[in-house]
């Protein structure tokens, strides 16, 4: 029973994420209106066939902006998880496999850093580097390294004493080969599950920072920023805030369900 439910979660999560991905791809090639095209008469138009999700205070089509914003959010999350994940995996693999004094020092630093929520870490980096999209990507990538390093290190600690590793050593395989050809595939489920969680944190952090006005800056559409701009017109045009918000929820929900399903 329990296993079924887990699989159901995983499949549902994949479906939601696939739909989101399709929307991102659609937004990349085609949007019904220009995302920045202002259209006076359609100011605050309610959702209809003409504007699927309505229009905002400048008459911009919300659906088109949501598609673009989804792309921005997805892209930033993907890049940051990829950079943070790869670096973290490398650090975790090296420290977990070789151990020693470097391991001790890096893990002490890691212990401190993993205690901070990624949003808070990104906020710290942004407050030092200054607002903007590039700095946001850099901040989030750095913020994700510790959690990946910790998880991967744990896996490598577990596997480095296994017999197949010992036998590979006897065959004369190099450390690098053992780490990346023999151990890494075994650690993959855990890494993927962390990546899904990391993706969620990235979406949440990007949306939050953009909502605060210190993340993605105006010419780029961003879901977080759309919600913050729409707050002023909440009563007259709630759809301006609701649709971007629902998209964020779906994105997080989808990846949350996938990571639930991936857990052993």
């Amino acid at each position, binding site marked *: 029973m329990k296993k079924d439910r887990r699989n159901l979660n995983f499949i549902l999560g994949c479906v939601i994420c696939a739909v989101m991905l399709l929307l991102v791809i659609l937004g990349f090639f085609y949007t019904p209106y220009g995302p920045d095209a202002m259209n006076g008469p359609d100011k605050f138009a309610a959702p209809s066939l003409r504007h699927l999700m309505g229009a905002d205070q400048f008459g911009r089509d919300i659906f088109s902006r949501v598609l673009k914003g989804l792309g921005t959010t997805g892209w930033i999350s993907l890049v940051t998880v990829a950079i943070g994940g790869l670096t973290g995996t490398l650090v975790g693999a090296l420290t977990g496999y070789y151990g020693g004094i470097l391991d001790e020092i890096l893990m002490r630093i890691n212990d401190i850093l993993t*205690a901070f929520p990624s949003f808070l870490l990104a906020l710290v980096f942004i407050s030092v580097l200054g607002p903007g999209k590039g700095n946001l990507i850099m901040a989030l990538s750095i913020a994700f390294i510790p959690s990946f390093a910790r998880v991967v290190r744990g896996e490598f600690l577990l596997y480095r004493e296994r017999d197949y590793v010992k036998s590979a050593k006897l065959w004369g395989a190099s450390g690098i080969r053992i780490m990346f050809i023999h151990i890494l595939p075994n650690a993959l489920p855990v890494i993927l599950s962390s990546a899904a969680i990391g993706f969620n944190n990235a979406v949440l952090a990007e949306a939050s920072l953009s909502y605060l006005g*210190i993340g993605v800056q105006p010419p780029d559409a961003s879901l977080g920023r759309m919600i913050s701009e729409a*707050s002023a017109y*909440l009563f007259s045009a709630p759809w301006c805030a609701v649709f971007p918000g629902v998209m964020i929820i779906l994105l997080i929900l989808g990846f949350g369900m996938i990571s639930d399903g991936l857990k052993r």
Partner: protein
Amino acid sequence: MKFYIKKIITLIITLLIVSFLTFLAFDLISGDPAISKLGTQATPEKVEALREEMGLNDPLPVRYARWISGFVTGDLGESYSYHLPVGQMLLEKLPVTLTMMGMSFIMILLLGIPLGILCARHENGIVDHILSVLNQIAMSIPPFFLGVLLTFLFGLVFKLFTPGGYVSYQDSAAGFLGYLILPSFAIALPKSAMTVKLLRSSVLGQLRLDYVKTARSRGNTQNGVLYRHVLRNACIPVLTFLGMALADMLASSIIIEQVFGIPGLGRMLVGSISGRDYPVVQAIITFLAAFVVIVNFLVDMGYRWLDPRVRLGGSGNE
């Protein structure tokens, strides 16, 4: 005892490292405070004189020592934009943020623990299924969007509160607490959902252990075992989670203050980042970092105190 002393020393070293890193970062980026104080038109001699007077020409460790001793004694420098002592500004905002966090913590306990037990008691029942779906959704709502939704529902549709009508705690305690209910709830809901999920699986895990069968065979009722024995053990991981969640709640409160227009620590931080008011940013970031490190330390201690196996087993590391 030896163990606690070691832990406390580690805590102090961690705090020093974290504060030094923030000091270093802000020292590198904030430019020349003497110029920002005098303006760019000041003569080089005047700037140099002020630099000497402000002690900016001293080596880095000396400046760090002066800054950290200032931090401990409450002298945090002066805000660039408000020309007020940063310490005084922090002291004014701190109660607001802390009250809000305290309220959301109570809400998490009130929502999360009863619902978690309910789910575990009716494992795979209708209530359990409905709650687990709601849970999954609640966990996915970003707190700031929940704040926006709550403002819309309660402020604009039901008109139960005035959006932006914040009441200072100095004016009316009841009005202040009343205004903080919705923001606290926005912070609490996603965390309550996680608490329910965690407590449910923790209780179910405990119910499968042998001591439950023993207790039942001795004539205890299912509920008696649940409330007297199981719950105590099942709460240990939940309490650890709640301790860790405090850091997350602090992060959410920074955004929520922006949503509801509450003049707390977070609003001051965001305003100062945009306005490049470095002394304020530096003070708040250092405070946040210290808060996270200390909470983590307390969670670690509390965990040891709650779980005798960890306390006596001595396997402190992994």
